[in-house]
């Protein structure tokens, strides 16, 4: 059996190590490094892609439901807006701030902010409606300084600058690959017209011709959201490049 023992050290080594400890203590007591950010009065500098509070731009939203589908915590629910389109709402009681929704948003309608300190009075309030996500939330700013962590070869330093960070980042929208829905096997179409009902932009239309329903996709109106592709019962619709 291997026994764990105290490492053998000579008296000289012990004295050297004690002296090193005392030297470190003296150095730190005179010129201490610190890792503390005095939060309400100072704010740590967050990166631009910080996963914080979500903002929403309805003009860019194509109502593809991708955010709601991808959300692992099931925090995003789509709600119908007065203009008959579906927009996301976020329940921050469930949200785990993984920001899959931001990554999956093809139009760049959901975007992140550097806000990480949000307070609610009750659980019901945590369900953030679409209207509340459009406008910037009200923030009481007490911070006068911006703190940046700098790690050199061995130590961590705090760099303090007298400036106020903007919490709302302008993210360049992702390069959009224009996609369009296309029927690859029109012969297998049942004519159930689910795709027509699903389509938010009214790109899919149906004509009854000799008691046979024929579907048509308007390539100009199609936003490439892929809802019809998901819902097609025969799975004959595909998203292709425009």
């Amino acid at each position, binding site marked *: 059996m291997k026994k764990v023992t105290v490492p053998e050290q000579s008296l000289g080594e012990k004295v050297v190590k004690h002296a090193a*400890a*005392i030297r*470190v*203590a*003296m150095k*730190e*007591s005179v010129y*201490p*490094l*610190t*890792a*503390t950010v*005095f939060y309400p009065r100072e704010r740590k500098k967050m990166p631009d892609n910080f996963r914080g509070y979500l903002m929403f731009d309805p003009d860019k939203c194509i109502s593809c439901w991708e955010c709601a589908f991808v959300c692992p915590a099931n925090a995003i629910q789509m709600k119908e807006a007065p203009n008959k389109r579906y927009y996301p709402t976020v329940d921050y009681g469930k949200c785990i701030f993984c920001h899959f929704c931001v990554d999956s948003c093809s139009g760049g309608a959901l975007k992140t902010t550097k806000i990480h300190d949000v307070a609610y009075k009750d659980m019901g309030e945590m369900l953030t409606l679409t209207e509340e996500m459009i406008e910037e939330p009200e923030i009481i700013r007490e911070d006068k300084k911006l703190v940046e962590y700098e790690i050199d070869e061995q130590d961590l330093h705090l760099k303090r600058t007298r400036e106020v960070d903007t919490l709302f980042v302008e993210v360049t929208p992702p390069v959009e690959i224009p996609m369009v829905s296309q029927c690859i096997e029109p012969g297998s179409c049942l004519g159930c017209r689910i795709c027509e009902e699903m389509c938010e932009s009214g790109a899919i239309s149906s004509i009854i011709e000799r008691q046979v329903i024929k579907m048509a996709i308007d390539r100009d109106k199609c936003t490439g959201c892929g809802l019809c592709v998901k819902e097609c019962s025969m799975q004959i619709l595909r998203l292709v490049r425009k």
Partner: protein
Amino acid sequence: MIDINTVITGLGIEGNQVSVPLIQQMLDLLPEIPMIKLLISFILWKPFFAALICPGFATLGILLLFFPWIERKLCGRIQWRVGPHEIVWWLGGIIQLLADSLRFLFQEVIVHKDAHRPYFLQFPFLTFIPALLPLLFIPAGNIVAIETPYAIQIILAVICLFPLFILGLGWASNSRFAFIGTVREAFMYFAYEVPFIIAVLGMIILYGTSDPVGIANKQSIWGIILNPVAALTFFIAAAMATSRMPFEIAEADQELAAGPHVEYSGIAFGLIYVLCYEKAYVLAGLMTILFLGGGSGPEIAGLGDLSGVIWFLLKTLIVLTTLFVLRTIYPRYRLDQGLSIGWGAMLSLSLIALALSIALAQVGVI
């Protein structure tokens, strides 16, 4: 009508005054006001000044307000933390203990069912006797309350009484954590006491006197340079005696939840909390006298006798700060390690120190 001058002469406080040239002119004007001359003469009477102001009650009281703050702030800085901060944050939380003591004052003192009630409530106050008595014999410069050629021995004897009161605290608590802490305290007491006494004894042999003022005057070369082994032994013993970090065996916050005083709350806990700082102050004062030349130092112009007081306080604070810093760089020893250090390394060191002192005394260095 009593003649004040007769009273002052009658009490024998005329010739034994703290002289401060800077404010002497102001003091000379004051006797115009009745009774003030008696009052001022009484306050500046050296024994009274020593007992009441420095190094006695007032200085201790003010320093006690700042010791925990100094310790916490310094340890915080060394460990990359901030320490006390939110109370008066622009001064770095300097009145933290004032706020804490206010809280202690208004908190309920819970005496639990199993405790031995009279002792449980008496001991926090009784413990002040060994903590405050040595201050009567410690001189700041040439100001001392009671002058006796056996002062060092008396200080030692009173300091050695201290753990008995801690044992009393733990015993009266009648709880298992307090009991374990008490027994550990008793073990450590025996471990440090013998080397501690031998180290001090060595210094008394070296100086050939045990009058603290005489010892301070004899140190043309500081004791720490003459006999560094004794200084090291004394310092480690002081760390053990005040339950500083490497030897915080009796209190052991993490395992015993404060050891002998686990059951105390409210102002009783507040009193015990400052006790170890008082003990540290007394031991640091003793170390200043024995090894750092007492109140000797360059004369500060215009301050007269107060110059020695300032040097004494400065040296004491440096010793205390060194004691406080130990907390940041050392983990805690186990009980058996602490005992083996006390009975092994430190006893040998103290004997070496004793031999060195005798040799130096024979050569006639002092």
